[in-house]
């Protein structure tokens, strides 16, 4: 990217703000910070950033509320950074429009990777060319041709398996909730049938992964969903 991406960090802890400002600035991002929800919302409206890092426990309004109010007018990627590690909190925030979720304490490499993924997705959504081929190690998934190969050998997938893999790969790097996957790949009416997903995921992993018990491409997000890891 030519200009420095602009990141807005909304968190009520001064130490976290200080650390993130230092680290992100060093990584060539432009950083704005807010310590209250309303302040963050005002800053986002006045000077729309490229990405928002948001804490859930804010002194004035809840982070989930901030998320919902941002989504009323903008699709700026939002990454939640919170000490709350209950699955319900995470799923709730993702349902309200957050793009990703990271639990404190976190590794900075992980945060940077999530930021890169989110920025790339928003760039794609804004119309830059979206590749139809996704690579992950020896795996090559061609979304247009509906083919999957492992080191050049084609892997036969059922229609549902391919639909599942395609949805995960198209959102590579992002966490997808069980509900989102189920309503996209199956039907919104099936959103509660996590067992479908578990069964198909096991079949899919058996076909793709070298060791289905130590998956490298489709990772578990405990209690929340799955994340596909691609090369870039």
């Amino acid at each position, binding site marked *: 990217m030519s200009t420095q991406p602009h990141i807005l960090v909304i968190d009520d802890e001064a130490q976290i703000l200080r650390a993130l400002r230092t680290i992100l600035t060093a990584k060539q991002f432009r950083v704005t910070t807010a310590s209250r929800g309303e302040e963050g919302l005002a800053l986002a409206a006045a000077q729309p950033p490229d990405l928002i890092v948001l804490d859930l426990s804010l002194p004035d309004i809840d982070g989930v509320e901030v998320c919902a109010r941002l989504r009323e007018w903008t699709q700026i990627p939002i990454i939640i950074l919170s000490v709350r*590690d209950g*699955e*319900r909190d995470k799923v709730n925030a993702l349902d309200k429009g957050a793009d990703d979720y990271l639990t404190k*304490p976190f*590794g900075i490499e992980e945060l940077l990777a999530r930021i890169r993924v989110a920025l790339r997705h928003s760039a794609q959504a804004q119309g830059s060319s979206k590749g139809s081929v996704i690579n992950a190690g020896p795996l090559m998934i061609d979304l247009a041709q509906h083919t999957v190969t492992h080191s050049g050998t084609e892997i*036969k*997938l*059922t229609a*549902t*398996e391919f639909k599942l893999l395609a949805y995960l790969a198209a959102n590579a790097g992002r966490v997808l909730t*069980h509900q989102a996957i189920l309503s996209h790949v199956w039907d919104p009416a099936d959103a509660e049938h*996590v*067992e*479908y997903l*578990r*069964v198909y*995921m*096991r*079949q899919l992993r058996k*076909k793709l992964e070298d060791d*289905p*018990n*130590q*998956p490298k491409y489709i990772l*578990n997000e*405990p*209690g929340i969903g799955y994340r596909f890891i691609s090369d870039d």
Partner: protein
Amino acid sequence: MQTPHNPWKSWARTAFTYLLTILATILTTLVLNALRQGISPTIISLLYLLPVGMAAALWGIGPAALAALLSFLELNYYFITPYYSLTVHQTQDLLGLFVFLGVSILISQLVGRVRSSLVQATAREHDAVRLYELSAHLVGLQDEQAIARAVAGQALIAFQASCVEVVIEQQPDVQSVHIRLNDETSFGELDASRVTGQPNLVPLQSGKGLLGELRVWRGDQLLSPTEERLLQIFASQTVLALERARLARAETRTRVLEESDRFKSSLLSSVSHELRTPLATIKASVTSLRSEEVPWDTEARADLLAAIEEETDHLNQLVGNLLNMARIEAGVLRPQCTPNSLAEIVSSALNRTRQQAQNHKILVDISDDLPLVPVDYVLIEQVLINLISNSVKYSPENSIVQIVARQVDNRSLRVTISNQGPPVPEEHLEHIFDKFFRITAADRVTGAGLGLSICKGIVEAHGGRIWARNMPGGFAFNFTLPLIGSDKLKNLQSGEQA
């Protein structure tokens, strides 16, 4: 409102006894008059003592005195010369008459006194029985409702009342109670006639103030002074029972508080030790890195930084365990069960313990056809993490830790995590899942002694069971998880094939 019926009735009864006394003396005179030829006057005067004694024994002092007087007069009139006149000629006779009068009064007094103390003793025995019944019913009662019911029931019997009410006022620490019992034998439904008349009210007065009131209705019949005294005793027994119940509750509460206090202080001491250990490593590493005196080479820097990262993860895991412990203690641990693949959970638990287990060989044996199991992913992952990290901690480096999952039957599956560590003394096996239980000295291996008790809490919240067992050449943790409603999943699995 006090009706005069009662005094009238007792007056009539008294009058009747006097009448009977008069009749008895007349009867005696008639009989003796018929037999007077054969009997000496001395015997006659002795026989006149009969009605006196009888009146004293049956009706008390008053009739006895009357009998004595009448017998004296009748004896004088009919049997002392001159006959049919109250005059006496011989001094000897006069003396005899006065002796007779004296003796009969004495007898009437004595017999009367014995009789009235017998009446009193019977009444006291009656009261004692009633009180015994009351205290027998109050023994062990710990709530106001039950106490009030017992008192009302006993009062109903003791006072032959038509209706009894026990009212206990709301107090801090005491619930308000209003019990009303009616005499079931007279009429079924409560009707106005039952509560006519003034109730006999007794306050339930304790040392700390008024607790309530005891009310007894008995139609128009008043309570005798003895009964009033008994009612007072009923009230004081009730107060004692209420106080006892309150104290017992306070004692239970204190015990619970003490227990939780003990738990908190042992948690606190254990936790502060656990929290400080990783903090010490972090602090030492960071201050070394910042120190400008030592020029650190790349490898040393990497080592220190790795130590910081490991200890941070360790701290985070500890906090997670503490939170779960608090949830288990507070009884708010509610697993969010969804169908999960155990293999998936095991693999993510292994990911999280990779650092700790880097010097051990971990073998996973989970059969492919293991059905999905309805569990809370995050909680069962925590169980596995704790069991794996415990196995690693207590077994020698480069030894094998094995994780095996098998379906036991249609209803449950079993997970076994075994290691090649030393056996645990048999007597400790049952206790290793208790809070803060440790086999080795606290400082040898880190851990707050919470991990295994959390496992127990979580597995039990899922309806499973956890236990530990010594094995040939090692030690194993086992836990079961119920498999409810997994049949349709199995069908789904064999459904679509490429």
